[in-house]
């Protein structure tokens, strides 16, 4: 499990490099770069921080991943968690930060 950064979408704002709890991302050649993919904890802080949805989170094959990726786009308090499946379909779960978990 780790992240991939879509370099075409990345605007080099540097927010992900600041927020990663492992300081695993840096700016290289004007783009964000995941320097240590095997050291990612999977907290998705960077995924939520990215203003253009350029960071994709995936599960490694060693923990059952099959190639789907997840990114987050947000509008105010609403987080859209977009799961891009390998068949090309997208499933989105919306979570409102103003609502508590039910469990």
């Amino acid at each position, binding site marked *: 499990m*780790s992240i991939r950064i879509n370099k075409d979408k990345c605007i080099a704002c540097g927010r992900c490099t600041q927020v990663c709890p492992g300081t695993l991302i840096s700016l290289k050649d004007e783009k964000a770069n995941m320097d240590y993919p095997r*050291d990612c904890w999977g*907290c*998705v802080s960077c995924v939520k921080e990215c203003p253009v949805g350029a960071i994709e989170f*995936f*599960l*490694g*094959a060693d923990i059952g991943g099959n190639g789907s990726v997840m990114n987050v786009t947000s509008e105010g308090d609403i987080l859209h968690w977009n799961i891009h499946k390998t068949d090309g379909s997208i499933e989105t779960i919306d*979570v409102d930060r103003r609502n*508590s978990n039910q469990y």
Partner: protein
Amino acid sequence: MERLQVRRIQTDVLIVGGGTAGCYAALTISRNSNLSVLIAEKANIKRSGCLAAGVNAINAYITKGHVPQDYVDYATKDAAGIVRGDLLLTAAEHFNEVTEDMERLGLVILKDENGDYVARGNRNIKINGENFKPILAKAVEEAERVEVLNHINITDLLVEDNRVYGAVGFSVTDEVAYEIHANAVLIATGGAAGLYRPNNPGFSRHKMWYPPFNTGAGYAMGIRAGAEMTSFEMRFIALRCKDTIAPTGTIAQGVGAKQVNSRGTVYEKHYGLTTSERVYGTVRENQLGHGPCYLQTSGITDKQNEELLKAYLNMAPSQTLRWIETGKMPKEQDVEIQGTEPYIVGGHTASGFWVDTNRQTTIHGLYAAGDVAGGCPQKYVTGALAEGEIAAVDIIRRLEENREEWIPSDPAFLQENANRTLLEYEKIRATEQPAFTIEELEEAMQKVMDEYAGGIATGYQYNENQLQLADEKIDQIIALTDHIGARDMHELLFAYELKERLVVCKSLIAHLRGRKETRWHAFNENQDYPETDEAYYRYLNSRMRDGRIELIWRDIVKEGEYEHTN
């Protein structure tokens, strides 16, 4: 290679680690005094520490109809008596107040029609904690007289005559070292992960329960400075969703799912319901050939299924991705569970710094709060906030009300200490062709701990012969760390994380060897002494003197005030 630039900073209070406990301590000092505070954080306080991904319940709360003493009684029973009554009670007395403060700062908490918090079980309330840490970090950034230095890794305390005067560290991103002088230091660096080979040792090696960036830095600097530690042998092993290592409480308590084996038998009642027994039962069922084990979620309602997917996004999103990616929802398929590798973490068990009731360690002026502080198991998030507050209040009392000011009797000695640390940084940076990489030595350490000190490989079991071998092999690896190299500042961080973990491993092995009984199944599963022995109803503490670990047995402390006698 140019030498690191050295920056010297003076502050009243240095807080090492800007996680939950460290941030709340800073906030408390800012609100209640004129003292200057510096937080040195190795990542960025916005998302650093345990709450990076979020948390979806407050698990230490005094719900309606209960009193703080109930919490003390529960945690005491769960830890088979090896707890500090004074620490548990003082933490529990603060749980609700810190929760209400977090709500004022912006935390969303579920309420019923009367405006009361909705309980999940006896001690828990439901929240949306996805942004718990950003809320806390924002409050700290707005607080007066608090400076935050992000991306600074502290490695060593400056201690003379058992009194702390500051600490030394370096920037993780720039070629700068820091020498920080302070009148009081609070260690809030969290616990230690990555000592043992993890569940997923390959590409997803860091898909572990506890933050892989919590490397035991605080324990290690305390141990090297001669501080007393307690109960390292009470390891914590979490029961987690297979592969994603996501929490199980949301399923077990949230939708009431039972632990079942592959035959459909509810096995949890055969082994007991304490935290360690739930792990032990799962290990035993697998050893008996009854695995895999599951949380029985099949048959939950569509609504429950939907809410579980959302709840996991707010704390462990990989689990939600897993459900959707496989197309098998919890309502259709039970969730497979497993035990994690062992951790040292004072928020769950009693391991950590030996502190007085005010959270001062055995080194004068040095405080500990949160997962790094021992004696107060199951303190969780609210306990970390509470301990940050309790330590902060005592720091204010000493520095501002009593105007305690400490002058080193031998400033040259402290400067030599600082210089020695700075020279060590330069030596590691100057080593160009090390025999082994840091990563190779980390794998070697994890293998030794896994196979000889009760890791996943042995079902958490160990015996004295194995522990002796573990100790010898860890010594060999420590010797090899004299020759490691770092090409940049981030690799220097990796070098120190390895060194810290090795120091913690040594103390952990000494503690496992010391407790010649099995008091907490799985957490300490001593095959030479498989029964509980009431002669060991005592704390096992330790401290390092002249490079050797001394064990100290102490009598159980009940509720009331505890002061160090040193």
